[in-house]
C-alpha cells in the first residue's frame, strides 16, 4: 500500500492569531520516505505539521491524501492512515503507560468494541520497540521526561498508520534514546514502508536520516531536496543566522557552528 500526503499552497494562521504563520507552503511526503523539517523556532514547522494533521484548517490551499481533500475524510479514517504527534502531548495524573499506548488503537476500534487480538499485538510491539515493556503499568507522572516522550511515540507507533507526522520526536531524549527513536523510524520506513515527516533541530541527524529535508524560514519553504544539496553553508547562515562549516566525513554530513552570523550580512 502506498500513500501520499500533500500540502498544496497552504496559507494558515493560528486560531487566535492575526498574521499568517504559513505562507504559500507546498510539501509532500509519501510511503517509505523520510522527510525532515528543519528551521529555527517559529519558522512554521509545527504549524505545517498541525495543518497536515488536520488540526488547523488552512486559510488557503488544500491538504490532499492520495489526491483526496483531507477535509472530506472522516477523522477516524484519516487517523488510520496518518498519525500525528504534537510537540508537547499532555495527560492528567494517574494514567498508565499501557493505557496511553492503547489510545493509539482508537481509530481501529468501533465505538463499543473492546481491545482485540490485533490491538494487543500492536500495543505490545510498540511498547517493546520503545523499550517500555517493563514500564507498562507505571503511571505517567512517575516517568522521566525522556520516558514520557517514548510513551507518546509508542502510542503513535501502535496506531500503525502509513504516514507519521512527528513534531520533534527526539526532544528531551538522551543520546542513546535519540538514536533508538531515529533507528525505529528508519526501520519502519525501510521494512514497513512507513512515510515519516518529522521536525528536528539537529542538522546532522536530519542529514543521516532523511531522503529529503525541507528547510522552513519565516513561514515559507526556503528549500527542499536531498540533504547534501540543501544543507549548505549559505542556507544555514540565511535561515539560522549562524556561521557554520559543512563537511563530509565517512559519508556523513558534519556541521560545525562557529558562532552568530555577521548581523549586517543577515539583513
Amino acid at each position, binding site marked *: 500500500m502506498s500513500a501520499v500526503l500533500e500540502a498544496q499552497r497552504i496559507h494558515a494562521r493560528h*486560531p487566535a492569531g492575526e498574521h499568517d504563520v504559513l505562507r504559500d507552503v507546498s510539501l509532500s511526503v509519501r510511503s517509505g520516505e523520510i522527510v525532515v523539517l528543519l528551521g529555527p523556532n517559529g519558522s512554521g514547522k509545527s504549524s505545517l505539521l498541525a495543518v497536515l494533521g488536520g*488540526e488547523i484548517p488552512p486559510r488557503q490551499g488544500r491538504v490532499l491524501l492520495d489526491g483526496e481533500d483531507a477535509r472530506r475524510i472522516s477523522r477516524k479514517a484519516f487517523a488510520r492512515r496518518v498519525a500525528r504527534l504534537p510537540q508537547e502531548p499532555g495527560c492528567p495524573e494517574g494514567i498508565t503507560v499501557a493505557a496511553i499506548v492503547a489510545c493509539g488503537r482508537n481509530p481501529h476500534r468501533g465505538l463499543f468494541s473492546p481491545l482485540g487480538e490485533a490491538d494487543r499485538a500492536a500495543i505490545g510491539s510498540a511498547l517493546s520497540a520503545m523499550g517500555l515493556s517493563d514500564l507498562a503499568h507505571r503511571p505517567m507522572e512517575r516517568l522521566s521526561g525522556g520516558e514520557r516522550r517514548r510513551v507518546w511515540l509508542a502510542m503513535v507507533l501502535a496506531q500503525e498508520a502509513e504516514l507519521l507526522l512527528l513534531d520533534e520526536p527526539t526532544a528531551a531524549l538522551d543520546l542513546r534514546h535519540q538514536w533508538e527513536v531515529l533507528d525505529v523510524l528508519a526501520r519502519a520506513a525501510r521494512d514497513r514502508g512507513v512515510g515519516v515527516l518529522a521536525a528536528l533541530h539537529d542538522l546532522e541527524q536530519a542529514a543521516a536520516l532523511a531522503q529529503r529535508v525541507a528547510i522552513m524560514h519565516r513561514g515559507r519553504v526556503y528549500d527542499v531536496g536531498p540533504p547534501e544539496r540543501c544543507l549548505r553553508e549559505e542556507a544555514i547562515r540565511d535561515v539560522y543566522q549562524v556561521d557554520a562549516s559543512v563537511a563530509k566525513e565517512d559519508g556523513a554530513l558534519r556541521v560545525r557552528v562557529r558562532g552568530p552570523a555577521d548581523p549586517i550580512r543577515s539583513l
Partner: protein
Amino acid sequence: MIAAWRRLALRFRRLRAHPAFLVTALGVGCAAAGAFALCAGAVEVPLRGLVPALFDRSQPMHSLLVDVRLPRIVGALLVGASLGCAGALMQTVVRNPLADPGLIGVSAGAGAAVLIAIVTHPEVGMALPFFAFLGASTALALLVASAWTGARTPAPLRIILAGVAMQALGFGLIAIVQFFFADRAPAFVAFVVGSLNGMSWQDVRVVALPTALGTGAALLAVRSLNLLLLDDATAGGIGLGVRRARLAASALSALLAAGAVSVAGLVAFVGLIVPNGIRLLCGPDHRVLLPLCALGGALLVLVADTLGRTVVAPLELPVGALLSLIGGPYFLVLLRRKLT
C-alpha cells in the same frame, strides 16, 4: 511486629484503591445509610421492626416509611448520583478539577429556568427537567463562549471567574422571579442552597429519567471521555472529533445537573468533593470514575440529608447547607493544591 503492620497497611492501601473494593464499600455504605435514614426521625422506628413495617400495610409506621421517608431516600440517592457524575463530566470537559455545576453557574441557570417554568406553568410536572436542561445548557454555552478564546483550553482560573459571573446572573434571575412570584415559587433559601424536604414519589419520577439517561449515556461513552483527558491536538491525532465529544459530554453533564436541580434546588459541592476524592484513589479512568462518582455522590447526599434532619431535630437543616460547610474548605484545599 512493625514489619507485619506495615505489610498490612500496604495491602490495605492497595485494596483501598481497588475499584471492586470501593464499589462494594460505597454500596454497603448506601445500604447502611438508607436503613439508618428509614429508622431515624421525629418518630423513631426500631431497626428490628423495619422490614415488617415496610412490607405490611397494616403496620402503623407503614405509610410514614413508604410515603415519606423512602421517596426522600431514593431521591437523595438519585440527586447525589447525578451530581457526582455531572461534576466528573464537567471537570473532564473543561480540564479543570475545580469545575462543579453548582459553582460555575450551570445549576444556577437550570434553577432560574425551573423557577420560571414553575411560576408560569404550575402543572409542568415531568417536563421540569427539560426546562432545567435548557437553562443549564444556556449557562454552559455562555460560560464556554466567554472563557474559550482561541483553540487552547483556557487557564483553570479563567473558567472559575467566568463561572462566578454566570452564577451571579443565574442568582439574579432567581431572585427576580422569587420577588414577583413569592406565592407560587418554592421557598427561596431552601431552593438556593438545595433541600430534599418534602420529596415525594412524583419528585423521584421527575429526577429518575435524567439520571438514568445521563449516567447511562456517559457510561456508554467512557472511551471517548478517556480520550478527552489527552490534550486536543493529541486526541485529534488519534481520530477523536474533540469538539463533538466535548459538546456531547457537556450536554450530559448539563442534563444530570438539570435533573437534580428540578427536585432539589441548587445543591453545590457534590460534584466537586466526590470526583476529586475518587480520582485521588483510583485515577482519572472514566470506566472506574463514573460508577464510583455515582455511588459516592449518592452516599454523600443521603448522609448529609439524614444528618441535616436528625442532628438538630425537630428543626431541619437543608442538605445543601451542610454540604457547603464541607465543600467550602474542601474547595480552598483544592485551590492550593491544584492551581499553582
